[in-house]
């Protein structure tokens, strides 16, 4: 609790005691009024003061004014204890509100407690602790075990494990060694690292993330705008209704003035829109906080709200559903052993830097003895011919085999097929493909479970490859052999063919798909650790590269929306009910206080649930 809150608590306690005393004293008439005015003054002086001051500033209809009128009115109609209690409860409610909001603000802030306080910089062989802002690109910094990595950089010396939990929600630490990139905001767990800084602090990952999270509350959701608009009309409407209720019945049907004024005062107590106005943004704030705990950064409440209506998810293939790394996935020799086939291919391709050649060399895994290699001839678009151990080896695609007149056979496996022929006879083929991410299949299934109607994959790859992956993962639709511009066109087509209420989400790795990310209703960039392009282009950023997080994000969005709706409906229903009962003379000041303060408190408690996220990995 802050100092102000403690002071308020003391006032509440003192006033409550004085109220009990006033109630017990055997007084009547003016003396009784005086006795109740003491606790009223203790608890309510500032409200009355603010009401007067705000009227002077031309601000009527604010909550201070309403509470003042309601309580002064209660005194006038002889309801002394009620007047004090209404004020007392109002202050209790305000105190609780302030406390609860402060708490949730703190817990979200601590989630994002990734801001490094200092960097150990090496200057003339000595270590110096400086502000991360003062470190320049190219400087060498030292990160000791247990310290936060202050700036993005590349490891020069030392190996360690780093904990990325604060950024990704992933609890498994990552091993790093010299040459690896490290990202600011992670914690160095074991060894001493010497790092060369590659980005200044303002451009480092940690700054980008903090900036994103801190600005997320400036983009307001539709529900939030609805509520503020509603509040603008609600309060004056209820106040006018209160005036009419106080004046009309006694004038028209000759009712008791005192009784109708009492009923009107009930309206005034209920007319404060705070429960609604506070609980909606608090829910979104909590939802965004809960998401960031799982490594999902949402740029605003509006995106979280719209994510709950996701019905179409469009994926980019490479780097999103697949690892984007080519690997040998099958070796089918005809006349020689598997190892010999790989060896021949790797030797022949040893001078090439094509991704396919690289994956062949990786599969071979041993040192390549280039002395065994004779002349190499590149055959563009087909493959190459090389002399290995004096024999003529051809490595390439179907076309090359046709050209040299070797009888070859196609492969049933999906991927890029590399044929090998030795001295004009077919030796076999090797299949190279991009590996599907381990959780990709599960990700698609989870999306369906979250009510996603259709999943679509876009890829620039060949038809057979794209369709194979789509089938393996259970996607509904696939578009292959697309150029980057075609992807935007496909997404636009999908946007045209969906209804207004449905949300189309595009998921990409953020590297080449910025136009598509911004064209979709919601763009999700994944694997954003260290890629600022992705952080800028997308509406939602997944810090790690697991597609299964998309379903988690949708789940959080739905939960948040559920809480927002519960709060709106609950608050409106209770207020409406008490208004009706109050007008009929059934509800008293006590119910009115509950409808105001009690509803606020319950709505706030409900909103704080949005912060909690079930952790599954």
């Amino acid at each position, binding site marked *: 609790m802050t100092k*102000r809150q403690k002071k308020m608590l003391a006032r509440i306690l003192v006033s409550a005691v004085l109220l009990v005393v006033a109630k017990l004293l055997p007084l009547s008439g003016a003396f009784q009024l005086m006795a109740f005015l003491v606790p009223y003054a203790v608890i309510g002086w500032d409200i009355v003061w*603010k009401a007067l*001051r705000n009227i002077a*500033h*031309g*601000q009527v209809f*604010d*909550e201070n004014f309403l509470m003042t009128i309601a309580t002064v009115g209660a005194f006038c109609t002889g309801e002394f204890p009620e007047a004090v209690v209404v004020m007392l409860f109002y202050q209790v409610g*305000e105190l609780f509100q*302030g406390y609860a*909001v402060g708490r949730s*603000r703190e817990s979200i802030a601590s989630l994002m407690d990734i801001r490094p306080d200092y960097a150990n910089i090496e200057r003339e062989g000595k270590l110096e602790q400086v502000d991360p802002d003062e470190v320049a690109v190219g400087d060498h910094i030292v990160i000791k075990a247990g310290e936060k990595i202050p700036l993005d950089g590349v490891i020069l010396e030392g190996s360690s494990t780093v904990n990325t939990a604060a950024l990704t929600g992933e609890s498994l630490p990552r091993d790093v060694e010299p040459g690896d990139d490290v990202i600011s905001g992670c914690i160095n767990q074991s060894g001493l690292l010497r790092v060369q800084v590659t980005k200044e602090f303002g451009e480092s990952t940690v700054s980008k993330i903090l900036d994103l999270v*801190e*600005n997320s*509350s*400036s*983009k*307001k959701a539709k529900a939030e705008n609805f509520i*503020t608009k509603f*509040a603008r009309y609600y309060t004056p409407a209820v106040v006018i209704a209160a005036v009419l209720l106080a004046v009309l019945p006694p004038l028209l049907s000759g009712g008791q003035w005192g009784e109708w004024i009492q009923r009107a005062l009930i309206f005034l107590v209920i007319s*404060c*829109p*705070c429960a609604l*106005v*506070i609980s909606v*943004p*608090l829910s979104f*704030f909590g939802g965004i906080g809960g998401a960031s705990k799982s490594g999902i950064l949402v740029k605003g409440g509006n995106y979280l709200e719209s994510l709950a209506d996701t019905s179409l998810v469009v994926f980019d293939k490479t780097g999103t559903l697949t690892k984007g790394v080519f690997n040998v996935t099958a070796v089918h020799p005809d006349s020689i052993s598997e190892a010999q086939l790989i060896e021949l291919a790797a030797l022949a391709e040893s001078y090439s830097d094509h991704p396919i050649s690289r994956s062949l060399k990786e599969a071979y895994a041993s040192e390549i003895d280039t002395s065994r290699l004779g002349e190499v001839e590149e055959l563009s678009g087909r493959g190459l011919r090389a002399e290995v151990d004096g024999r003529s080896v051809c490595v390439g695609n179907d076309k090359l085999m046709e050209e040299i007149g070797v009888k070859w056979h196609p492969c049933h496996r999906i991927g890029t097929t590399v044929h090998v022929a030795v001295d004009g006879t077919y030796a076999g083929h090797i299949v190279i493909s991009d590996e599907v991410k381990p959780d990709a299949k599960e990700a698609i299934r989870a999306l369906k479970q979250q009510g996603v109607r259709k999943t679509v994959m876009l890829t620039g790859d060949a038809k057979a490859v794209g369709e194979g992956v789509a089938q393996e993962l259970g996607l509904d639709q696939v578009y292959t052999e697309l150029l980057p511009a075609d992807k935007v066109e496909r997404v636009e087509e999908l946007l045209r063919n969906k209804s207004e209420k449905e949300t189309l989400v595009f998921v990409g790795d953020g590297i080449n798909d910025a136009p598509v990310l911004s064209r979709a209703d919601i763009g999700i960039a994944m694997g954003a650790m260290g890629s600022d392009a992705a952080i800028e282009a997308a509406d939602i950023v997944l810090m790690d590269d697991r597609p299964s997080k998309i379903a988690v994000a949708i789940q959080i969005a739905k939960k948040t929306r559920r809480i927002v709706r519960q709060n709106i409906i609950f608050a409106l229903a209770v207020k409406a009910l008490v208004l009706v009962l109050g007008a009929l003379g059934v509800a008293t000041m006590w119910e009115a206080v509950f409808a105001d303060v009690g509803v606020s408190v319950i709505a706030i408690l409900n909103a704080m649930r949005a912060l909690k996220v079930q952790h599954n990995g």
Partner: protein
Amino acid sequence: MRKTIKVVDLDCANCAQKMEDAIRKINGVQEVTVSFMAQKITLTADDARYDEIVKEMVKVCKRVEPDCKLMV
């Protein structure tokens, strides 16, 4: 130019909304959000008159909610 300004002791969500409405009416303000949750104001306004607009904003906020302070 866009800047964020911290607000201290902004106690009520409804007042935050009123402040936002009032600031938006200032001449030269392009975009403004008063975030009750984050306790700050994000103001986008004309570069040339930015300081003037900020001063005006402080005054307007003072009128709406005299208890809270803008850390300009």
